[in-house]
Each structure stands twice: as structure tokens, then as C-alpha cells.
């Protein structure tokens, strides 16, 4: 996959007028999307991810019509069913609850918490980094010192400390995870802003009297966006794994709300009855994280201008 492909004339679409066919997209986003689309692993990851999100969003519908079970109904006489037995698509767990339905609702929780966390981390990290990089001086120093302090404590330990003190729902958990994942992007953004600040167009904007706020929002922010997007694509998997780890340890999402992590810890207790129970939630986490990693790598290859194979 080379840069030459980005300006290749796309003749595969029939309903595009003849004039359009000779004019390939030259916008940054257009070219980036073209590179991304040409990357088979990235597209595969994107497809899987879209399927996952669709499954998560449609969990309610699916549980009604496809699986025929709900998340919480227990049926102790139907525990540990094998895959496909008795109408249980993926078997049932120790309490007779349908694994497939719980995986779907677990997808909602895991993906939802991850989504919330990444947005929160982006919000905090980007504004922190832009402020530090743009204003410079002692503000930069102070802000980055705080980042250093927060980075020195291993995240999982901090999560453990905080989660052990308060039981929290998915939303609060999302915010807590966000508050531990924003430091890297703030550093990245600060670096970008430091170099952007000296560029001519920023000086020109200042000369025509643009306020600091306008410069930051209108000029700096769009230029750090690619870095932030690449970071997000590579960080969401870590956030999903943090939430899963916490739930696995018994802290994050509490039973009976299904999360892939706490489904795994439940299954661990009864591994001798059913090894598939242990296998399935972990597999769900693995597939999702793998897909997002592929997409993240594809985003980096498509958006990072410094990369040239």
C-alpha cells in the first residue's frame, strides 16, 4: 500500500458521473479514507467492530427474537447446558442464564464503558495538552508535572484503590477509567501544539487579531486531531481491557449486570463443569480488542504523515 494508491482514479463506482471519475479526492480526509480502505486488515477489523457495535445496540431486539432468553432469568434446572442444547445458543451458565444473551448485554456494557472513557479521556487530555503547549512557561511546567505524578502510579493499582472504596455503575466507572487514561494523549498533544505554535499560519492569525481561544479552537485543534484519533484507536483496546480486568477482579461492574469480565470470573469458579463458559467471554473480549487494534493500526497508517513504507 503506497501513497500512489491514494491518488489512483477510482473507477469502481458506476453511479458517479463521468466527470467525477476523473477527479480523485485530494482532501486530507479523502486520501486518508482511501488508504484505510486499501488496507485489508484494517477493513476486516472495521467490519468486525461494526458487527460488534450492532450486536451490542441490538441486544434487546436480539434477545427477544433470536435467543429467546433474557439476561437475568435464572433457571437452575437448566444450568450448564452445552452449546446449542435446548434452545440455548451458546449454552447456559451456573444459574441457567443464557450465555449468548449475557454476552450481548455484556457487549453493551464493555463497549459503552470504553466509549464513554475514551471520550472523557480525549476531552480532558486534549484540553490539558493544548493549554500546556499553547501557553507554555510555568503553566506548561505545572500541568506536565501533574501528568508525571499521575503516570508514576500503575493504573491498575489506582483503579483497584478507587474501585475498592466505592461500588460504581458503568457511567461512574467510565469516568474513573477516563481519569486514568488521559495522560498519554495530553503529552502527545502538548508536543504537537509546541511545534504548531511556531508555524506561520498561527502567527498570521495572531496578526489579524484572533483571540487565543479562537486560535486554539479554530487552528490548533483541527491540526492535532489526527494524532488524537490515532491515539484513540490504539488506546480503546487498553480501556476495554482495564474495565474487563476490574470486573474480573470483582470490582467493576457487579453481578447480575453482565460484563465480559465478571462473566469470566463467574465461569472460573465452575470451570470443572464447563470449560466453554470460561472460554467464551474471554473470546468475546479478544475478538473485540483485536478488531479495534487492527482498526487503530489502519488509522495510524492512514493518518500519520510521518509514516512511509
Amino acid at each position: 500500500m503506497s501513497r500512489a494508491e491514494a491518488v489512483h482514479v477510482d473507477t469502481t463506482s458506476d453511479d458517479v458521473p463521468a466527470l467525477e471519475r476523473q477527479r480523485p479526492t485530494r482532501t486530507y480526509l479523502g486520501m486518508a479514507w482511501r488508504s484505510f480502505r486499501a488496507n485489508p486488515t484494517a477493513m476486516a477489523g472495521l467490519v468486525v467492530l461494526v458487527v460488534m457495535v450492532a450486536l451490542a445496540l441490538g441486544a434487546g431486539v436480539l434477545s427477544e427474537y433470536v435467543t429467546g432468553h433474557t439476561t437475568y432469568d435464572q433457571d437452575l434446572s437448566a444450568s450448564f447446558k452445552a452449546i446449542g442444547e435446548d434452545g440455548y445458543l451458546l449454552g447456559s451458565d451456573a444459574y441457567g442464564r443464557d450465555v449468548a444473551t449475557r454476552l450481548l448485554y455484556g457487549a453493551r456494557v464493555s463497549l459503552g464503558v470504553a466509549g464513554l472513557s475514551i471520550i472523557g479521556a480525549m476531552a480532558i487530555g486534549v484540553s490539558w495538552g493544548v493549554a500546556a503547549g499553547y501557553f507554555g512557561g510555568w503553566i506548561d511546567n505545572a500541568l506536565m508535572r501533574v501528568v508525571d505524578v499521575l503516570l508514576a502510579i500503575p493504573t491498575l493499582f489506582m483503579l483497584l484503590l478507587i474501585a475498592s472504596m466505592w461500588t460504581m455503575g458503568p457511567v461512574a466507572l467510565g469516568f474513573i477509567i477516563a481519569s486514568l487514561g488521559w495522560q498519554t494523549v495530553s503529552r502527545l498533544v502538548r508536543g504537537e501544539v509546541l511545534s504548531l505554535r511556531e508555524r506561520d499560519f498561527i502567527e498570521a492569525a495572531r496578526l489579524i487579531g484572533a483571540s487565543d481561544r479562537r486560535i486554539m479552537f479554530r487552528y490548533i485543534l483541527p491540526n492535532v486531531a489526527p494524532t488524537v484519533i490515532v491515539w484513540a484507536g490504539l488506546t480503546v483496546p487498553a480501556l476495554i481491557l482495564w474495565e474487563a480486568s476490574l470486573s474480573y477482579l470483582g470490582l467493576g461492574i457487579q453481578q447480575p449486570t453482565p460484563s465480559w469480565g465478571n462473566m469470566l470470573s463467574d465461569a472460573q469458579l465452575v470451570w470443572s463443569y464447563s470449560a466453554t463458559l470460561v472460554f467464551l467471554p474471554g473470546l468475546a473480549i479478544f475478538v473485540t480488542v483485536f478488531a479495534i487494534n487492527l482498526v487503530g493500526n489502519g488509522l495510524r497508517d492512514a493518518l500519520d504523515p510521518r509514516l512511509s513504507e
Partner: protein
Amino acid sequence: MTRYIIRRLAQVVPLMIFISMLLFAIANLVPGSPVRNLIAQLGSHIRLTDADIARIESYFGLDQPLYLRYFTWMGHVLQGDLGISMITHQPVNELILGRLPNTLLLTGTAFVLALLFAVPVGVYGAVRRNTWFDHMSTAGAVSGYSIPSFWLALMLLLLFAIKFEAWGLPSLPAGGAYDLRGGGGFWDRAQHLILPAFSLAFVQTALWTRYIRSQMLEVLSQDFIRTARAKGVRERIVVFRHGLRNAVLPLITLMGLAIPELFGGALIIEQIYNYPGMGQLTFNAAMQHDYPLIMGTLLFVAFLVIMGNLIADVAYAIADPRVRY
């Protein structure tokens, strides 16, 4: 160089102070009085009047304002006294120092394993780009850091320790650091270390393989490599002495950043394998709301992380003669 080390060491002090303040603040944010919480935890058979509770609180200085409590605690910490565990009544120092060697052994082995595997695979993948080996190892690496470490640990445990034993094959032990019935020798410890260290190293190995490969690719495309080849230098020397030497420099920083990851990962791995280390200690402390122990272990781990970063920085300064210090 010595001045650089001293300067870096001096930076550690304010960092530790800020961390201690942060940890103290968080641990003390718990709503309600610690004494009442402890009573609620220990059981309803404990009957204390409000006057008793007030007396206990003033004895432990819990009715003092936050900053005074912080200074009292820090005073003790600086003298090396991390307090007494609320649950086991042992000094926190003893508990930590007893567990520390195990965790260091585990994380150290994982670190070495990751390095031993990642460097050859990453270098070979870069040198033989787009071959079958390269594609396989890249795919393997991406799936490697996509696997949840606790799932991998569980699967490995199920397979190698439990299923193998059920099938009559030679199996690895299912937990602990050494055989409690008279073990403790080198092989015994090594056997118990294999599965946890492997599970811990897996994710880091995958990350480092990718990183080394991309760094090597970048370095090998530079002009000075071309010059070396044009001079007729043997390919192996080009790759290792010229290429790898320059490629590992950012890796040192990455490895420094991996130290907190390893400690965090050790937390879960130690739980799964029942490995008596700092991770398990911290986890149990958090579960039991044993605040002196929690703060002691967190402070200690933060200190280890900072020290690890310092060593990484100094190693970088030694390895890269261009670094100004």
C-alpha cells in the same frame, strides 16, 4: 554523568511527595468514620458505644484535620515506619518486604523473557520484510497484545496444570511460588514461575516485537546503513552493530514505561496463580479495606516505578552518546 544521576535522583523527592499526598487524599476520601466502617466490616458482635468510638478515634488521631494526619503519617513513613496492618496486625514493612522478592522475581523473569523473544523476532521480521515469517509474527504480535492477560493466564492454567495432570502428562504446578511441602529449591521455584511469568510476559513481548520491528525498519532505511553496506560491511554487522544499536534506544524508554504495566499485570496474574507477591498483597488489602497496608504498598510500588524510570533514563543516557546532560 554523576551530576545527571544526582539531578534525576533529586527529582524523585518532590515526585514522591506529590504521590504520597495524592494517595493519602484518595484513601481518606472514603465516606464515614474508619472506625465505624471497620466495625461494620468485622461484624455486629462488636458493641461499642459512641463514647468508645470517639475515644478510639482520638487515640488514633482520626479526629484531627486532614493535613495534620498527613504530616503525622509522612513523619512515620520517612522514619521507615509504614504502620501496622489493620487486619493481620503485622508491621506493613514486614509484609511488603516478605512479598517483594517474589514479585521482583516474577516481573524480572517476565521482562527478560519478553526481551529474549522480542528482539530476535522483531529484528528478523524487519530484515526479512513481507515474508511469511514477518506476516505471521506481525499477526501474532497484534493478537498477542489483544489477548486479555487474565484470560490467557486462566487458559494456560487450565491446560498445562489441570488438564495435563488429568490426562496423565507431566504438568506444571497450579499455583504458589514453591511447593509448600518441602520445596523451595531452584527447579521447584522455576517450575512455579513458568506459567505466571509467561502469562505476564506475553503482552509485553507482543508490543516490543512490533516496536522493534518498526524501529529497525526506520533505522535500516537511513543513509548511514546504505553507506555501511556500500563499504562492504558484512550484513550481520550492519544489522546488529549499526542498525540494532540505534533502534534499541527508544526501546529503552518503552521498557521504562513498561515497568508500571508489569507491576499492574502482576496484580492479576498473582491473583490467578495464587502467587504470594506484592500484587496479591495489594489486592487483598484493597478488598479488606486495610488502609495502612493499601497506602504502604501503593507508595512502595510507586517508588519502584519511579526508580525503574530513573534507571531507564540513565541507561538511555549511557547508551546514546548524543544525549546532553
